[in-house]
């Protein structure tokens, strides 16, 4: 039986990088899953994890998220923004050798409708403030997703950060 859950591409950084790109994504799957382990290289406790699809910026993205930091829970909305904000990773000031985790689910990425997305992320180092975040996002664009660029809201991805893009087939 053909494999349902297939690794499309991976990137494990051996040096810092401002962005990580997945291009030429085949349209032969049903959904995509991006799994990330990352931290920033700058002096921070947490950094926002962002995606752009097909080189699109403008105002094509929006999100609603739920966040907890061990003290309070909150919910925030961003509308008509230029990137998809899909979670958090550990900042460069957190405990050494500790990376935040992100999983992004992109259903029907090759379809002709707008693209809803789901993100789950966490950053915990038993020292500085921790974060657990759940994101609902929308890419208001009816084109098939053929490329993904990952960035941080500030700083660069630290060496050792890893990115794995999987394709899921529903039949």
């Amino acid at each position, binding site marked *: 039986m053909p494999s*349902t859950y297939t690794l499309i591409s991976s990137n494990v950084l051996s040096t810092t990088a401002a962005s990580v790109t997945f291009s030429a994504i085949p349209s032969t799957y049903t959904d995509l899953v991006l799994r990330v382990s990352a931290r920033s290289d700058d002096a921070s406790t947490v950094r926002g994890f962002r995606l752009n699809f097909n080189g699109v910026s403008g105002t094509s993205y929006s*999100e609603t*998220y739920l*966040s907890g930091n061990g003290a309070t829970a909150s919910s925030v909305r961003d509308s008509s923004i230029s990137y998809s904000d899909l979670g958090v990773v550990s900042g460069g000031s957190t405990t050494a050798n500790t990376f935040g985790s992100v999983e992004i689910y992109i259903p029907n990425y090759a379809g002709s409708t*707008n693209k809803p997305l789901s993100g789950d992320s966490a950053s915990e180092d038993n020292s500085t403030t921790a974060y657990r975040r759940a994101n*609902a996002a*929308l890419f208001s664009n009816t084109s098939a997703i053929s490329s993904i660029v990952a960035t941080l809201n500030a700083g660069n991805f630290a060496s050792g950060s890893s990115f794995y893009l999987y394709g899921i087939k529903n039949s």
Partner: protein
Amino acid sequence: MPSTYEPIATTTLSGSTSEVTFTSIPATFTDLRLVFVGTSASQALAIQFNGDTSTNYSRTIISGDGTSASSPRNTSLDRLIIASLNSTPLLTSLDIFSYAGSTNKTGLINESRDQNGSGLVLRAVGLWRSTSAITSLRLYGYSGSNITGTATLYGIKNA
């Protein structure tokens, strides 16, 4: 190597086909995952297992609507709500652990929807108080039809 993550069945729901029952679910997997992506006109998306319509379902929720976070609980329900649909593009999933085992069935619900000015992100734990193996799963629009989207049931093996 045997496949770890397999699609068991997939179906497309439209206004005239507003529900689906996945039947004869094999007991050969460890966990199940149901993934739904679609829209609806003000209909909640609900689940019932093995034709059980009794009040054997419950869930505890944490959710955010872009303004505030909340954590309600629903108990003794006759169905498990996995999404509150309202025409927005929606992604929801339900992970059911040890679905073929002889203990009560726990599931994780992950609902995400955003409409560029409104939306909801919800994470919940659900419980079906039955020690029977899950052999069927009914997915339907609670209080009516008009569900549109694709539902896929996957089986996950731990070995």
